[in-house]
């Protein structure tokens, strides 16, 4: 078994059926990369800026932001010209959800 497929099998055990980490404290940057690869997302510095922003936000508020506060956060912290099209380009159709998943935030129990 190659190292890569070994790591993948390990990750499988750590994920629930929807691909969220069972224990969000297990999150690491390599795990984020593997989660992203499964979602066919190639993590660039632009992705990482958002992921770091989300992790910092969660440390402050213990919540994952919905779309509107996420956009506001990105605009105040990164660039006021960025909006939801930018986030969708990076993270696909449900950017708040996907970015929170990749950032290892606890899976939300409330489907908004």
């Amino acid at each position, binding site marked *: 078994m190659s190292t890569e497929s070994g790591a993948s099998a390990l990750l499988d055990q750590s994920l629930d059926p929807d691909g969220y980490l069972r224990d969000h404290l297990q999150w690491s940057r390599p795990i984020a990369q593997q989660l992203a690869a499964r979602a066919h997302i190639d993590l660039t510095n632009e992705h990482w800026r958002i992921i770091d922003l989300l992790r910092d936000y969660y440390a*402050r508020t*213990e*919540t994952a*932001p*919905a*779309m*509107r506060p996420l956009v*506001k956060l990105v605009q105040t912290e990164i660039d006021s010209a960025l909006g939801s099209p930018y986030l969708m380009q990076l993270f696909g159709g449900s950017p708040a959800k996907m970015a929170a998943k990749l950032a290892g935030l606890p899976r939300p129990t*409330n489907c*908004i």
Partner: protein
Amino acid sequence: MKKLLFVISAPPYTSKRGTAQLEAAMVAAAFDAEVSLVFRGDGIWSLLPDQSAQQVGQRSFAKVLQALGDYEVDQLYVCLDSLASRGVEAAELMQAEGLDLAAQQLLLAEQDAVIGAAL
């Protein structure tokens, strides 16, 4: 746009109704309602600033409260009578505007719906 008032009257770490109310308030704001919150009765304890909830394995009410501003929920009120009867000064608490009972009467009367946190 409807005006919705969320009442938080239970203390934060037993029933967890308070955090549920905060989540509901955020959802309401995301749905474009005009949202305000009032803390009264033992709900005022939710506003103490130095909460270390991880020590009891819970989310921190104080931290979740910080997120409200990001949903443009900034009408936070606290009942002055509830503070006085518990010997708490408004200055000891996190930011919320003190309202006397008469002001709470007016606040209630202008709502389209009041979502309580009883029990």
